């Protein structure tokens, strides 16, 4: 990690505190996210109240904020990997999701973009590929962009990723489309992780962190064009004015919002003025999440605007294997997700 990145992150955190962006004060969160925003920041902040870079550099290994698979080292010989039901299940799941992924012919992308080491994740290696479950899902999504939007987006397109987490998808898009610009929206605590992740994975990238964004009165298209990545905390979302992004994306997070937050985003000017929407979300959010959102609520029902619609194979046709009686596991189907790419404005 460079000194510059450390300085930027410290500056982000300083402004995060000065501008009182603490997500614990955010209302209308579903219980899962309430619990996460209440508990995750302290996992990478030291007792002295400053960012702990030793914890930060392991944030993916420690599964801070968002879980991933594998959760442990599965490629090295370890007898527990053979007898533990959960570990065997994780191994099987990662093997199966690669099989599902390969059906769609995007192996070249997985070879081109092996899983980033930033955040020190446990990486699964198989058949020459390096990935995690979260990683392969984003590579699959990148493949969809190439297939359905590759010839429609301008070379310097601007994307807005709502619920970006630590930014795997925008970082992949930026590598695949080097002239592109990306606005990431999430809890500010997640954006601290995103700044670390993006700064480590793409050291040359121009990143407007929380500190820059806090100082702006508004964030328009011209401002974003000065950067590769602009990190916008959810409470500052309304600073996005005149953005008219070429692409709005949301993966599995609209479906984890309360209706109030969902409507706040889908009815917002940046979303309504976007050229394209790309989303993959649960067909029905309940009972996994405490929200009544379903596919009926998404702005995808104008058939004339659909470019792609399907049941998402990578989200829906892989299984979780939950530990059962220590040595066994139970095969559980993921709640089905849809994937949609279509036009929004005009």
């Amino acid at each position, binding site marked *: 990690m460079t000194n510059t990145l450390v300085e930027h992150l410290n500056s982000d955190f300083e402004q995060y505190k000065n501008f009182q962006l603490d997500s614990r004060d955010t209302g209308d969160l579903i219980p899962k996210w309430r619990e996460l925003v209440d508990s995750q920041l302290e996992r990478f902040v030291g007792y002295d109240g400053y960012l702990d870079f030793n914890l930060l550099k392991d944030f993916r290994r420690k599964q801070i904020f968002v879980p991933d698979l594998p959760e442990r080292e599965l490629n090295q010989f370890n007898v527990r990997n053979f007898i533990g039901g959960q570990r065997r299940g994780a191994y099987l799941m990662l093997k199966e999701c690669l099989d599902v992924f390969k059906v769609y012919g995007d192996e070249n992308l997985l070879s081109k973009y092996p899983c980033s080491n930033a955040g020190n994740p446990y990486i699964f290696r198989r058949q020459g590929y390096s990935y995690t479950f979260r990683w392969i899902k984003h590579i699959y999504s990148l493949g969809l962009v190439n297939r359905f939007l590759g010839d429609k987006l301008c070379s310097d397109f601007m994307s807005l990723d709502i619920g970006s987490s630590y930014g795997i998808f925008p970082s992949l898009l930026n590598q695949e489309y080097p002239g592109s610009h990306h606005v990431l929206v999430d809890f500010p605590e997640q954006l601290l992780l995103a700044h670390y992740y993006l700064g480590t994975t793409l050291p040359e990238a121009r990143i407007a962190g929380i500190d820059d964004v806090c100082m702006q009165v508004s964030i328009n298209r011209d401002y974003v064009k000065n950067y590769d990545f602009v990190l916008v905390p959810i409470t500052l979302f309304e600073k996005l004015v005149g953005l008219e992004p070429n692409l709005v994306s949301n993966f599995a997070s609209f479906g984890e919002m309360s209706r109030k937050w969902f409507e706040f985003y889908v009815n917002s000017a940046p979303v309504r003025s976007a050229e394209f929407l790309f989303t993959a979300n649960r067909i029905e959010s309940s009972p996994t999440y405490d929200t009544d959102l379903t596919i009926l609520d998404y702005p995808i029902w104008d058939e004339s605007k659909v470019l792609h619609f*399907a049941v998402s194979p990578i989200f829906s046709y892989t299984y979780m294997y939950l530990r059962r009686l220590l040595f066994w596991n139970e095969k559980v189907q993921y709640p089905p997700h849809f994937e949609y790419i279509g036009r929004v404005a005009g």
Partner: protein
Amino acid sequence: MTISTLIDTIEIQTNILDGLGLLSKDIDNLTTHWKQQIDNEPNRFINGDLSINSDALCNFRRLDIFTEDIPSGQGGLRAAIGGRHRSGRKILRDTLNMLIDRGYDELLKAYPCPSTGNPTLFKYKGYTYGLNWLKHIYLLGLMKDILEPELPSDFTCLDIGCSYGSYSGLVKKEFSKSHHILVDFPQHLLMAHYFLGEYHPGARIAGVGDVAQVNEITQGYVNQFDFVLVPCQIFDRLHLDGLDLVTNFVSFGEMNKEWFDYYVQSMTFRNAKYFFSTNRVQSSSTYDTDMNILNYPIHASQSMHFGVCPIQSRRYQSKKIWFFKAVTSPPIFEYIGMVPDV
């Protein structure tokens, strides 16, 4: 009505249909699955001289004519230990447990699976049933939960893709004053005639041949009957304004877009009050049609219920004869709502 009288009636209907050219296999624009079905399945119970093979018709559920069910087959040692049969039993147990969780087992107690068509049945927790019957019990439960307060006691329900009519038959048991219009391939409706004639002895059934001779099927006509059997080719003769309920379970998703539009663009559908449907979110993984949920006339503002149908959510597949594994089945949505204004 005795079985032989019922079969004689069905034979008469078959001959009328043939005379009107509606028994033809030349129905255009079918998906491959249904083209094969319509080419092969009628021959399993209609003889070449248009007489009815009564033995086959009396066993149509055991023989899986047109519609497969679980359990199927005759039992025996292989059924007891083979992976396919054991997985089938697991599905049957899972599904019954889901019904019990939702409190719909009371309906199963009230309406046990009939033996019409001589189905192979499964016994568990004191219930005797097959999977298709459980599905229809579930749909009846859902309909009661959401629509019972909205519908008049003598409501009319149009079931498009009714198969042999078990859903309509069940609803009629629960709502005795209701009227039912069943739409499907004419050969399928002959089986429905048999099933409903047996399940509802004394019911007033307008058979396919009789209906095919009516130029305009109005509410007044429907009110004279408990069940009106309408071959799919003459669906456009329905002239019903303000029909109470249209149902479609799984079959819209097995059609191509032309047939789908033929139904949902019809005045009868568009002027109906409620729509109750369960269908695949995306058909193409199973059928050669590009239908998906975005094509359906369903809207958030008119929705009274929407969810992922719990019944087909898990499947088990035979593996190396003796074993089975869980496989993902294509997700199916369930929707009840007002028919949207166009």
